[in-house]
């Protein structure tokens, strides 16, 4: 009987994974019926929980999840209503604009949303991870630029088969971005120099190094249309496209998003399951207590900033290998800065970052579509983003205060019993 039960649970978990992965791939490539597979995965996961922990506990988990989800959902709704009011006041039709925004962001130009989201997931993960160690890796933008440059440089020179060269570039370019962050990390550990200042300065250095790099790797003026563009990297280093196996997918959509999501799952695992993550979180929550229990603050701060640099570097790699296949000046600048919003919105939870990055990407993509089709200014989208973020920050204040009140109350309950 016992064996049978375990067998059932494993079966359900396997079904969850298969359905989720296939559903996700389809959905991302704009085969929207993939949603039903993902929903199926959710149901099968629920039943596996029910077998494992019993009906009550599983239901409790579902309720807790929905409750967690409700707070950002409310924030988004409020922000949309607010954006609508502003449109009304300034003489635009909010219904038409929002229809265009959502149709553009989530249906028509869904592939653009996904392309926007891919690098944002990496920078968001980078910042969220550092936040968990109590560090603010504000210079993710710089590590992104290192990722861009390193992958372009390697892509121009390596002629190995894709199966070898692509993982190699990911690892080496990521490691170089990590090494770039090693300097601020070292300064932080040795002298206490604040990472907000040092990583930000390093971001500027990386960014303004890039024109020099581009010119050094630029094409022959006779064949290149623009002096500030590098040569195109070898086709052997290009990321596979969704179109290669799903013919209806958009021709620009590369599999970077799948790598990004897999990385998010990996970061979640690191943070919540491993010794490394345990120490990082302990240092982030209370470095004095961590130190008194033998956890080295310096080692963990150093590791966290390096890993954060690695993650932000990957965002540059996916941009070059997946989308642009070359580097030019100011190539999609701002992913590092936007990653801060994405991480904050996700409450620094690695899995949450996936969704907030897609939301951010969709708002950008939908905003462009909205401007093109309804002439509503794109700044509305920025206002909505600002309001969402504001509400999230306000939520932090609220929950911190609310938590304290609750604690006091429950302590009083305990004593009163």
């Amino acid at each position: 009987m016992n064996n049978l039960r375990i067998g059932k649970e494993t079966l359900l978990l396997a079904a969850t994974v298969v359905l989720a992965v296939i559903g996700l791939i389809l959905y991302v490539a704009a085969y929207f019926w993939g949603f039903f597979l993902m929903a199926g995965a959710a149901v099968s996961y629920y039943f596996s929980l029910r077998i494992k922990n019993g009906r009550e506990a599983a239901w409790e988990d579902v309720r807790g999840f929905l409750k967690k989800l409700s707070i950002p959902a409310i924030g988004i709704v409020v922000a949309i209503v607010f954006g609508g009011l502003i449109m009304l006041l300034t003489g635009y039709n909010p219904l038409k604009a929002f229809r265009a925004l959502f149709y553009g962001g989530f249906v028509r130009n869904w592939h653009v949303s996904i392309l926007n989201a891919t690098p944002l997931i990496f920078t968001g993960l980078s910042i969220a991870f550092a936040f968990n160690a109590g560090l603010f890796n504000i210079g993710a933008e710089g590590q992104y630029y290192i990722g861009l440059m390193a992958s372009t440089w390697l892509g121009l020179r390596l002629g190995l088969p894709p199966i070898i060269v692509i993982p190699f570039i990911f690892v080496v370019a990521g490691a170089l971005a990590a090494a770039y962050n090693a300097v601020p990390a070292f300064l932080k550990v040795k002298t206490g120099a604040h990472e907000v200042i040092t990583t930000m300065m390093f971001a500027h250095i990386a960014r303004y190094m890039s024109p020099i790099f581009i010119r050094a790797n630029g094409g022959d003026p006779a064949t290149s249309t623009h002096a500030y563009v590098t040569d195109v990297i070898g086709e052997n280093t290009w990321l596979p496209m969704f179109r290669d196996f799903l013919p209806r997918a958009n021709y620009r959509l590369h599999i970077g998003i799948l790598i990004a999501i897999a990385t998010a799952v990996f970061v979640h695992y690191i943070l919540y399951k491993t010794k490394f993550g345990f120490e990082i979180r302990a240092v982030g929550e209370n470095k004095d207590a961590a130190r008194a229990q033998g956890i080295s603050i310096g080692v963990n701060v150093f590791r966290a900033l390096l890993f954060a640099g690695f993650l932000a570097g990957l965002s540059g790699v996916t941009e070059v290998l997946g989308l642009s296949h070359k580097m030019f000046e100011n190539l999609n600048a701002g992913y590092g800065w936007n990653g801060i919003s994405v991480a904050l919105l996700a409450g620094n939870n690695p899995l949450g970052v996936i969704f907030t990055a897609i939301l951010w990407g969709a708002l950008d993509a939908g905003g462009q579509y909205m401007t093109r089709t309804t002439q509503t200014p794109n700044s509305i989208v920025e206002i909505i983003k600002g309001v969402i973020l504001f509400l999230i920050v306000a939520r932090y204040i609220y929950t911190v205060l609310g938590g304290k009140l609750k604690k006091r109350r429950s302590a009083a309950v305990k004593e009163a019993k």
Partner: protein
Amino acid sequence: MTLKKGAAESRSVCLEMKNIVKRFPRVLANNNINIKLYEGEILALLGENGAGKSTLMNVLYGLYRPTSGEIFLDGQEVVFQSPKDAISKGLGMVHQHFMLVDNLTVTENIILGNEPGKGGVIDYKTARAEVKALSEKYHLGVDPDAVIENISVGLQQRVEILKALYRKAKILILDEPTAVLTPQEVDDLFKVVKTLVETGVSIIIITHKLEEVKEISDRVYILRRGEITGVHSTPDVTKPMLANEMVGREVVLTVTREPKKLTGDPTFIIQDLVVKSDNGIEALKKLSLDIRPGEIVGIAGVDGNGQTELAEAIRGLRKVEAGQVLFQGQDVTGSSTRDIIRKKMGYVPSDRHRFGLVLPFSIAENIAMGYHTDPPNIRGINMNFRYMDEEAQRLVEAFDIRTPGTNVPAGNLSGGNQQKVILAREFSHEPEFLLVSQPTRGLDVGAIEYIHSQILNMREKNVAILLISLELEEIFALSDRILVLYEGEIVKQFRPEETNETEVGLFMTGGKGAENE
């Protein structure tokens, strides 16, 4: 200063709280409470943490509105919408956590929110003179120009008192005033309180310490679970009576320590230890001590005489300048904290929130912390959460930790239960040496009793224990030997049965150190 019975009753009632009920969404914090305060008396409000003392005083001070009930001042009914109203009617409150701005001067802090002068220009001169005059009148010894962050906690508390007096308080509420003070500062505070009473101020002291009730108050109200369970004229009651009414059961005030013959070589030896404090001054000057298996050595001393530095040096958190720390014959001077944990040397830090626990972490995670690098807490690179939960569950039962589950964040527990989590972690790994620093700070009688018995239990298991405490009572209750720490040196050694608190107290303040040398 103690009043004869009936003396208080002959005075006029300056404050009366009638049938006060305060209901929170799920708690009845105050249930039908009646309190009278006579002019010029010191009233103690005694109760365990969470009994409703602070709620009641917050109702009085206008921070909470009562659900029902009335407050009378000098026979007149008053309704306070906010502390501002209460202050204007002559009430003052000194909170447990001071409400001072660290980088302003005493005068600036006192006038803050009530600045004299007109047209937006503050009249500092008058204010300063007034503060000075008040300080002299009540013998507070506060320098009006000192910056708050540069003065001691005891003085900061007096600034709070001055603040209330400056606002013409006739009734002063002191919320757990001794919680943050050293024994000497407590004595000084009580002197101040007595001076205040002589000049006609009435005082309410909130406390959970029986000692203080006996020492300072004229009358005492005892609160338990939001209700008054007793009213006494202080000279008429004994400490055990108070304790029983407060806790609602028989409480052992001092645990019994079985006398014991010590055998074997010292487990733990410190030789000529020199350690510097944060600002580079020698905090420990060639300190030496040794502890044998099954012995509790108590370090008595006023806060700031090197206790922190001693604890941190032993734990590997602070650099040792010179000297040696030997554990089971091995030199562990300058070992990393991780090595010290692995060698089975336990540590109960004095500040459990800052050094003991990661409050957002679950009980299971807190119990594993420090031992999380070794199996069975770890499997490969993964934490073994299943084992951690089972182990935590076992310890929750063994140490009587009151919690709904092992996944509850440590921050949600009461102070006593938080301390039990730390004890569970440190005592369950079969330590050979324990460094226990202020294990019962801020805890109530029931929790103190439990924690003391657990420490003695470790003594029975032949653990060498170094106890650092600012509470002399605790030192006397637990120690086999008392060492007095004064300005970084052990100035005297006692057996507890051959001395008393007064004598030890004298050495603690350096009163007898010179004569001894």
